[in-house]
């Protein structure tokens, strides 16, 4: 059973990016260059569907403006209208959101994002992100049962 809603993690202090319509190689290069340019410690890449990836960085940011700076930088380098659209949406909301649950579509559903690549340190925001993700997935499992 798939819920009609999408559940995601809402974060103000973690740099998270949704990179759509991009190859894994390009996502990896982009994420690693952002990680070294802004000294973000480590990264984790999750695959949400073919050619759609999520990237989470390890270093916590105190201010939203810092997060926005990084995601805008990635948006410019990505040279992809889907990413620009996503970045604009996050700027309006003042938080970054990444999907955790499955996503119902016309042709069935998209599976929940799964980890495909890890690089660098993982024990700050990535650890928190994965913990929260696990908690949400547990909640959703219980909701579907009940």
């Amino acid at each position: 059973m798939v819920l009609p809603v999408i559940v995601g993690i809402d974060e103000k202090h973690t740099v998270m990016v949704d990179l759509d319509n991009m190859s894994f190689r390009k996502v990896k290069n982009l994420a690693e260059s952002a990680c070294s340019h802004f000294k973000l410690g480590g990264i984790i890449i999750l695959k949400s569907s073919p050619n759609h990836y999520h990237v989470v960085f390890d270093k916590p940011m105190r201010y939203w403006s810092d997060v926005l700076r990084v995601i805008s930088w990635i948006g410019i380098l990505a040279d992809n209208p889907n990413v620009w659209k996503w970045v604009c949406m996050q700027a309006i909301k003042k938080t970054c959101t990444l999907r955790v649950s499955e996503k119902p579509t016309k042709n069935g559903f998209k599976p929940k994002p799964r980890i495909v690549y890890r690089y660098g340190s993982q024990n700050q925001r990535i650890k928190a992100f994965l913990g929260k993700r696990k908690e949400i997935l547990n909640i959703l499992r219980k909701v579907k049962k009940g």
Partner: protein
Amino acid sequence: MGKKQRKIGKAVRYRKAETIIRKLAKKGYSANKIQRELQKRGLGIRRKNMLKIIRKVKGVKKKPHAEKYIPRKYRARVKPLLIGKPIAVYGTVQGKSRRVVMSGTGRSLYNAMLYVSKHPPKKRFLRILADKIILFPRRYLDFDEKWDEHPKVIS
């Protein structure tokens, strides 16, 4: 055997230290020198309090952003970011997107999810504590409407 030194009470120590601080500050001693002098005499007090007395003698005010004059390794540690557990639940109702951002403990998030997964919020964008949804579901959620089966939204 040497004579056992009597321990001075805190109040007495502070009183004695204050007179010495005033005397040395008037002479133009730096805070570090005064502190060393006090320690020699067994009258060590909190540096924060000592600086307060020195400022009073010199007639100067505390500088704004005083922290930047303390070497980084001695600065009080900034508390780690207090990050809650907001989760975003979003979808569409008749083609228009609606979103609830809830925060709370795991239990309250679960109980709120039971409502939110069935009924969309009245407002298009709702940021709320999960406990409030549990207490007053009809105030925040629209029980007459349902989420679309296939939402087309941007996260």
